[in-house]
C-alpha cells in the first residue's frame, strides 16, 4: 500500500486526503519536515501560494521537500501546489520580489492566468493517459506559460498548458480533489508504487 502525505499548511488538503483514502492509500498530513519520513509521495494542495510559501519558509520545509524528491518521492501539485513546484513564478506581488518555489519542474507558471474569481470556470478536459473528459475546476487558476524540453504536457485549455509531468513531478492547474473523479489520484498512487 502506498503511504502518501498531503501538505497541510493551508488549503484543500482534506479533500485530497479523502480522495486518497477512497482509493485505499495510507495518508499523513505534513506540516513539519519530520512528517515526510516514510512517505512514497506528497500532494501539495490548492490554497493560497503566498501563504503556503511563507509557512514553508517559517518551518524550513524547502530543503526537506527537495531532498524528498531527490530520494525518489513522487510529488503532485494542484493549483497553488503547482506554483510551488515550478521553476519560475510570474505574477507574484511585486513587494515580495521573486516568489520562492521548489524549482522541481522546468516551467514558468503564470499566477491567476485566467483572471479573478468571477472568471473561475469548470470544463471537461482531454488528458493524455485518461479515457473520457476529466471534469476540471479552475479557481483563480495558474497556467504553465513556458514548458521546458523535458516536460510532458498532459492537457491544454485555450492554448495554455494546464497539466504537465516531468519525471516524478506532476502538476495540474485545476482541482481534481473537488470533483469526486479520482482518476488522477489513482494515477498518482500508481506512480508512488513504481520503483524510482
Amino acid at each position, binding site marked *: 500500500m502506498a503511504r502518501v502525505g498531503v501538505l497541510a499548511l493551508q488549503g484543500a488538503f482534506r479533500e485530497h486526503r479523502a480522495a486518497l483514502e477512497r482509493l485505499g492509500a495510507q495518508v499523513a498530513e505534513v506540516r513539519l519536515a519530520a512528517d515526510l519520513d516514510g512517505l512514497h509521495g506528497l500532494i501539495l494542495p490548492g490554497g493560497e501560494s503566498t501563504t503556503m510559501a511563507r509557512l514553508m519558509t517559517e518551518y524550513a520545509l524547502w530543503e526537506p521537500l527537495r531532498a524528498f524528491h531527490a530520494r525518489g518521492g513522487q510529488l503532485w501539485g494542484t493549483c497553488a501546489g503547482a506554483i510551488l513546484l515550478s521553476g519560475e513564478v510570474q505574477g507574484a*506581488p511585486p513587494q515580495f520580489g521573486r516568489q520562492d518555489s521548489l524549482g522541481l519542474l522546468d516551467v514558468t507558471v503564470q499566477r491567476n492566468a485566467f483572471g479573478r474569481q*468571477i472568471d473561475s470556470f*469548470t470544463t471537461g478536459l482531454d488528458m493524455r493517459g485518461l479515457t473520457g473528459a476529466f471534469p476540471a475546476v479552475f479557481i483563480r487558476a495558474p497556467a504553465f506559460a513556458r514548458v521546458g524540453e523535458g516536460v510532458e504536457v498532459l492537457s491544454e485549455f485555450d492554448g495554455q498548458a494546464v497539466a504537465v509531468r516531468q519525471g516524478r513531478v506532476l502538476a495540474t492547474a485545476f482541482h481534481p480533489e473537488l470533483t469526486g473523479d479520482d482518476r488522477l489520484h489513482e494515477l498518482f498512487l500508481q506512480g508512488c508504487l513504481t520503483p524510482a
Partner: protein
Amino acid sequence: MTEATTGTPALKQGFAEMFKGGVIMDVVTADQARIAEAAGATAVMALERVPADIRKDGGVARMSDPKMIKEIIGAVSIPVMAKVRIGHIVEAQILQALGVDFIDESEVLTPADDQYHILKHDFKVPFVCGAKNLGEALRRVGEGASMIRTKGEAGTGNVIEAVRHARTVLGEIKHIQARPAEELMTVARDLQAPYELVRYVHEHGKLPVVNFAAGGVATPADAALMMHLGLDGVFVGSGIFKSDNPERRAQAIVKAVTHFQNPEVLAEISEDLGAPMTGINIDDLIPAERLAARGW
C-alpha cells in the same frame, strides 16, 4: 474539450475551500493589505473602518469607497473580499462590477433591510454570511451563501461570543446527526431551515459550505481555540491592526491556525507579540451595540 462554465455553486464553494486552514484579515488601506499578504493571510477584507472603529464612531456604516477597494485589489495578489450591508442588493452589484472576489453580507455594517437578505444565487461572485446558530447558517446557504462565518461580537477583542456561536452551530449539527431520518422535517420546521439542507447535515455531519470563525479573535491562542473547536479557518478584524505590533501578531495568528494542534509551536509563536488590542467586556454592551444580533 468542452466549453467553460462560470459562476456555478461548485466554483463558488470550491473557492471557499481554498481558504481553509487560513486567516482572512480586515484591512483599511493598501499598505495594511500588503502587510496582511506578507504575513500569510489567505485573503483580505477591504473595509473603511475596522469593527472596533465602527463601534467607537457610531453612525451608519456602509460599503467602502470603490477607489479604496480598487487600490487594495491592485496592491495584493491574494483574493480581496469586501462587505455590503445586509439586504443591500445594489452595493453587492457594485462590488461584483469592481471584480471583488468574495462579498461579505455583514452585520458589522448597518443593515439596509430589516427582513430580507440578498438572494445570492443571482450573483456570479460568491458570498459569505454570518450566523449565530445552525438555522441561521442554513437559511443563508439556502439563499446562496458559499461560505459561513460564525458572528462572534466584532470589534470587541473578546472571543466569548465566537466560541458561543461555534459551539452552538457544531452542537446543533451533532444533535441533527443523532436524529432518525423521519424526524428531519420537524427539525427543519423548528430550525426554520430548508429541509434538503437539514438532510445534508444529517448525512454528512457538517455544513454544506466552509465555516470560519469571526468576531473577537485577538491572539494566536484565540485563533487556535476556534480551530480546536472544529471550524475551518478564522477571520481577524480589529485584532491585528489595533494591536501594538500588527506584523508580528498577523504572522503569529497565521501560524497558530496551521499548528493549532501543536501546543509547543503555539507557545513559541505567542511569545513577545506586544500588547493585543484592548478588549471590551461584552456584558457591558447595551443591547443596541451588539452587532451579532443583527441578521436573522
